[in-house]
């Protein structure tokens, strides 16, 4: 990785600040990881915007072929594509004014990461939005996962 991984406070800020998430490469197939993640995030109150030229509607939301086609503001661009495909997606994320470029678990493109950071976006690589949300806001604790959370405050909703 070109930069150190974001700490928990940064991830919490990103996940609280972003409400509209464009999911590039979101599958219409219910048992694909992208569908799992988007479905989870939708259930947590995020607006999911599918970016998939092969589908018209996923999870009840209209699909767009490209990020540039989305006619409203997007906070986060969440990428489920192979690493080599990410740099142009990073450029598009900057162009549409997104606040965060998030490369999913197994996706790490340093050039895309640098593009996003240079434009002032938050950038996360090789993490799953769903898993990080669940780790920091309680859901993953359910599954016996070591969340790293040590606190004397009530868990935030």
């Amino acid at each position, binding site marked *: 990785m070109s930069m150190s991984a974001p700490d928990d406070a940064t991830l919490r800020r990103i996940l609280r600040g972003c409400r509209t998430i464009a999911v590039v490469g979101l599958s219409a197939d219910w*048992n694909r990881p992208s569908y799992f993640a988007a479905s*989870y995030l939708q259930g947590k109150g995020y607006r999911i915007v599918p970016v998939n030229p092969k589908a018209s509607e996923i999870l009840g939301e209209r699909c767009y072929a490209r990020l540039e086609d989305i006619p409203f503001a997007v906070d986060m661009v969440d990428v489920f594509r192979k690493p080599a495909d990410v740099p142009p997606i990073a450029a598009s994320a900057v162009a549409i004014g997104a606040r965060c470029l998030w490369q999913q*678990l197994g996706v790490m493109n340093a050039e895309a990461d640098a593009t996003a950071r240079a434009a002032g976006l938050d950038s996360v690589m090789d993490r799953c939005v769903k898993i990080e949300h669940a780790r920091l806001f309680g859901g993953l604790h*359910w599954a016996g996962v070591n969340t*790293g959370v*040590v606190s004397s405050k*009530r868990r935030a909703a």
Partner: protein
Amino acid sequence: MTQRRFHPETLAIHAGQVPDRETGARALPIYQTTSFVFDSAEHAAQLFNLQTFGNVYSRLSNPTVAALEERVAALEGGRAAVACASGMAAEAMALMTLLQAGDHVVAAGALYGGSVTMLSVNLAKFGIETTFVDATRPDAWAAAVKPNTRAFFAESLGNPSLVVLDIAAVADVAHAHGVPLIVDNTVPSPALCNPIALGADIVVHSATKYLGGHGTTLAGVVVESGRFPWDNGKFPGMTEPSPGYHGVKFFETFGDFGFSMRCRMETLRVYGAALSPMSAWQVLQGVETLPLRMERHSANALAVAKFLQADPRVAFVNYPGLPSHPQHALLQRQMKAGSGLLAFGIRGHGDGAMAGVRFIEAAQFMSHLVNIGDTRTLVSHPASTTHRQLSPEQQRAAGVTPEMVRLSVGLEHIDDILWDMDQALAAASA
């Protein structure tokens, strides 16, 4: 910006539990409920599809049990954990999730008797074959590997053999053959040894022993490291659609906690050896003081071992915490201290086994029973109890001799423990 890495003493108290969201309760509530309501039909569908995380039924997950799971995962430095009804259930859950008919296991010869039986009898009945090897020789592990080998299984510190496993060396052999090393870490507990840091892929515990620590409650835990490459071609159950859970691909969907999710959703869900919330709560009361207790168990055991070593009535003492023990250097590399378990033999006038039985019967407060890891000092005679189902040959392989007495040294005052040892030895040697 760097995140605090908390010490085990802090994790033993805090990991896996923050104050209750509704009430602010600081201690862990006991969620004594079988089931949990759904918000809507859609929510129920999402939970069943594993598209969102949440409780459905306490055979799968329960908030009180989850606190124990996360705490043990944190203490072991693992990615995730699944708790179940006993240590044997934990071992069975790890092996049955990983293996199918036609698979082969390489296991340490010196194992807890119940583990030997599970591998050599119960799993053999389902077409899973095991080769037992001398755990102290990494070349023996390598020589036993077959094309269908899918797991290595050993104890970090053998019960009652007290054989110390060279975890890093055996993990290297396992990984060279593309299979995970499963380590039973019951005797050291995570306070003294962390097999995952040394290369183990899966850790199992009888939490009944030191984790719970008070001899009150049965429980087991399986911890995964999150590092094993399940997509190496040998574990289709991790990478192909699960017929047992409507087509979920566990490794692709859950990544570094995919094995735990598969344990939970395929094995625990179907075989049903779930941990009760009340039991999880009781074990957690013990876990809070685990690091403190392990220091004292180890200090008391070392003092007893030194006392026995100096006593002419004693034929042998087996305690790897003794500097004279052949595996002492390895133990010092891997463990913070020697733990509370030791074995010894009384110099018999003819029948060593009878001297052992007389010792046990003469004890005043040392308790004759087959558990270990209690606050109380416990004594047992493995050849006539835990290992009596094994053949004499299997007993020898498990490190059990007829005269051997196993001691689980407790937290009583060391002078009182030595007094009871001394008077029982006098009775046994009379």
